[in-house]
């Protein structure tokens, strides 16, 4: 299998889906002539033309609103938000429209649309451009929230998102575009809402996704040298949330650490921990631990920023604390 980057995987998924289905089109800021601010749609404009690769004004409500309207007419828009931090300008349309219309109008409106958004910290962009607010969006029934941690998952899940008749928020991590991994050739789809064991182990269950997977895998390497075998479950979708592999793993290890890049309070870890206690209380052998971002707006200074973000060492320490 070829080893390609996350960026290539996402780009391939988009390209292949646009080739496959003429209803699919892209809209967003700088997706066309510029080629995407993260170069994901480089070459698309020239190949697919202005009609299918639409540069928009800097107007997030209009981008998401127009995507919703077009989706209601049967198109399959993929709207790109330059960063997820700009999603707040379109919050109304994501939360009050995209997540509600199908339900509120008793199924009459179908919204086969994808919102691609780049999130995450670690690039010294300061507090407003570095957030990982994934849990915020995962709060709303009606929206699907997907965030891959490997190139293979990125490609398969994005294809599934584009083919889904429900609105999907697809969150990519800005520091992971260069991550390489094996991706099968050709067309394949990974169903949304399925967690996956990314590394088997027996001692502690690590539940994570996206950037958390990257640091958890590295922590696992270190721990393995000390004879501690962690099992890593990658959520991949935050909503719907598939707890089955998590619970299965937890029943084996009786210990869990949840790793996420977002803030700890009211976060993904809080949700997963609560569900572990609800669904596997009699298997708990140690308090479930959460590794997450410090409760501060992310600072610009590199040292401070890294202090705030969860690190490999934090994961290692948390694992040892539950052992």
């Amino acid at each position, binding site marked *: 299998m070829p080893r390609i980057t996350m960026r290539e995987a996402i780009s391939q998924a988009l390209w292949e889906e646009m080739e496959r289905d003429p209803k699919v089109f892209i809209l967003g800021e700088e997706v066309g002539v510029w080629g995407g601010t993260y170069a994901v749609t480089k070459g698309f404009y020239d190949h697919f033309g202005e009609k299918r690769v639409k540069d928009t004004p800097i107007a997030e409500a209009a981008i998401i609103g127009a995507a919703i309207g077009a989706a209601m007419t049967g198109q399959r828009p993929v709207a790109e938000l330059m960063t997820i931090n700009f999603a707040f300008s379109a919050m109304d349309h994501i939360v009050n429209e995209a997540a509600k219309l199908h339900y509120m109008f008793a199924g009459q409106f179908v919204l086969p649309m994808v919102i691609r958004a780049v999130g995450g910290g670690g690039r010294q962009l300061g507090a407003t451009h570095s957030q990982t607010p994934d849990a915020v969006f995962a709060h709303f029934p009606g929206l699907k929230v997907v965030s891959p941690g490997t190139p293979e998952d990125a490609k398969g899940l994005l294809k599934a998102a584009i083919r889904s008749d429900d609105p999907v928020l697809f969150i990519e991590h800005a520091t992971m575009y260069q991550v390489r991994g094996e991706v099968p050739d050709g067309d394949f789809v990974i169903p949304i809402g399925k967690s996956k064991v990314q590394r088997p182990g027996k001692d502690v269950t690590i539940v994570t996704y996206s950037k958390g997977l990257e640091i958890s895998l590295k922590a696992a390497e270190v721990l393995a040298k000390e004879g501690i075998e962690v099992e890593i479950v990658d959520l991949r979708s935050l909503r719907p949330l598939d707890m089955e592999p998590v619970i299965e793993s937890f029943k084996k290890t*009786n210990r869990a650490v949840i790793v996420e890049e977002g803030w700890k309070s009211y976060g993904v870890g809080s949700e997963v921990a609560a569900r572990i206690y609800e669904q596997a*209380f*009699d*298997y*708990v*052998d*140690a308090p479930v631990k959460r590794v997450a971002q410090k409760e501060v707006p992310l600072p610009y200074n590199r040292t401070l920023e890294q202090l705030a973000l969860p690190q490999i060492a934090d994961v290692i320490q948390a694992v040892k*604390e539950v052992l």
Partner: protein
Amino acid sequence: MAETVIMPKLGFDMAEGTLVRWVIGEGQPVAKGAVLAEIETDKATVEVESNFAGIVAKHLVAEKDVVPVNTPIAIITQPGEALVKTPLEDAGGGGGKPEASHKEQGSRAVQTEAAQKQEISSQAAAPVKAGGPVKASPIARRLASEKGIDLSAINGSGPGGRVVRRDVESYQPPQAAPAAAPASTLAVTPPRAEPGLAPATAAQPGVERPLSKLRNAIARRMVEAKQQTPHFYITRDYDMAALMALRKQLNGLLPENEKISVNDFIVKAVAMTLKQFPNLNASFAGSQILQHAHINIGVAVAVENGLLTVVCRDADQQGLRQIAVEVKNMAGKAREGKVRPEDIEGSTFSISNLGMYEVEQFAAIINPPEAAILAVGAVQEVPVVRKASGESPAQLVIGTRMKATISVDHRVSDGAEAAQFLQALAGWLENPLKLVL
């Protein structure tokens, strides 16, 4: 038609009540106005009268249950009428008395804990953890219970000594031999307690007495009063000779149940004085001082496990005899736990009298939201210096004296005013005929 009796609201601030006793049992007939049950509120035990005639078909709450106001407590049906299930009952599992089940759980929990403590203290041979229940993870608990292992017998290796899964799995039960030990080690100090540090209660546990409603209410109100009201205190001495003489005279004319106590005089005198000092017949109300239109004197009455303040309404307008009879009646009922809410609510100034215990003087805590309280000591014969007047020099004589201490809310009034009040009070107490007129 079946009628539902609810936990009545017996006062503006009553939120819940304890059903102390069912007076009329299930299946028994009840007349309208008959006493159906006794209820204990924050302040008193009150009889609940039935608003309906019929048959008490069902008690919806048990004795000792605490239930919120408006909760159905009984159903009264007409003779021959079938009892229809109430929606509350349909809600299942004790839906009709949510508070009750809480309380049951609570007391059960207390019992269990107590039983556990007992168990622990009676098997001192086992490696007892220092205090509290055994710390164990949920899976350790489950495995231990499946294997029939006593968790307290296992030394936990988890953080803080928590018994975790591996401890249960690797646990080897001890051999039979040490089993004989317990009786002989009963008196031994628990192993982890450090010598000299063990509190006396560990060897000889004290008695835990749950707070009664009344005790609870007193505790709450007194903390509130003492913490939130800035008190100041002023004491003054009164010449009671004339009053004692007058009292003796009057009581000679009155039947036993109408005899006037010293305190009744004080009630009347205080009421008359308050007419001159409306600022002390008042309440501090945040941005303003509320001067009350009526002068209602509260008289503190000692009852079992606490104290109640019965209220003598419009005492300034009542005669001494009326005051005497009314206070006596209410105090009697209070001691029996049978006062009505109106007997104990609405006082605007209180008097606490410990004279009967030969207390010389004391200071009382204000009964909120009142602005002041008068603490009265015993009337005693004491040496008094009679001032020189005219030809006669100063002289040491036997005086009949009483000390009274006023506690005042400093937000409402100041020392000078309170002192003037005590002085004006002397004008009444030392000229008691004015009180009879």
